[in-house]
């Protein structure tokens, strides 16, 4: 079983890296970019076939390590 955990900065948290990327896109002449926020993606393979168990493990992983919930949100997406 595969899953993807996406970690993004919460709204209102300053994202200097996103801002720098936004500036770089503008200087490259890429039109129509209003703003950029940078995040992280984790592709995780899970042992076993129990989907509920896998989801619980992913939530545990995100809460304990993958995201710093002071500043970040996460989303879990099961892939088949």
């Amino acid at each position, binding site marked *: 079983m595969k899953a993807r955990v996406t970690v993004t900065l919460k709204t209102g*948290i300053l994202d*200097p890296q996103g801002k720098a990327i936004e500036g770089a896109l503008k200087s490259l002449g890429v039109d129509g970019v209003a703003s950029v926020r940078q995040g992280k993606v984790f592709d995780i393979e899970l042992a076993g076939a129990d989907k509920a168990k896998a989801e619980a493990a992913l939530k545990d992983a995100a809460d304990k390590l993958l995201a710093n919930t002071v500043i970040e949100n996460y989303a879990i997406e099961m892939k088949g």
Partner: protein
Amino acid sequence: MKAAILVFPGINRERDMARALRLISGHEPAMVWHAETSLPAGTDLVVVPGGFSYGDYLRCGAIAARSPVMDAVRGYAAKGGLVLGVCNGFQILCESGLLPGVLMRNARLKFICKDVHLRVERSDTPFTRGYNAGQVIRVPVAHGEGNYEADEETIKRIEGEGRVLYRYCSADGAVDESHNINGAAHSIAGLVNDKGNVLGMMPHPENHVEDIMGCTDGRGLFAGLVQHLEKAA
């Protein structure tokens, strides 16, 4: 003062810290490997030094904060034991939940390596009793992620409880945005937890303790800790 310095893979300031502690306290600090599950008996001070633990992978300090020795540090701090985290150590203490908030990328995205001035906000704590309130000290910083942030309510509580001990400032002690090197909320360079026994700070006082370093302003922090422990004993 019996100090214990935590050692994680990728840490590089532990020897500087050991040298400063040896020099000022007269005792050899214990070096404690991250896989240990306990601290040496009779430890008076736990130091989480600077560096790049686990290569700063995931988030600065994130992986070190989950290492076995940190459970022992949490237990030690819960009983009132003194903990000092410098630079990456500050990041580790935030990630481990011992201090509130988080250290983000410097506002101007640059790694900053230079001497800065800090205003000591109060002198009635174990971590500042070697200084006078309002005193300005000069110490080096070397970090890319030192921009302290927390939600508004947390910042308000920290300020209300007088928990900011060190702030970035000018040579004459003015705190303003032009001297806030990394964009930290309220120019916070160092703060303590709610019980006042855990300090995290970005600057490196251990690197300004001998004449050969060109400045000895960092000595006061360690000398103050020694004094505090002697008085308590």
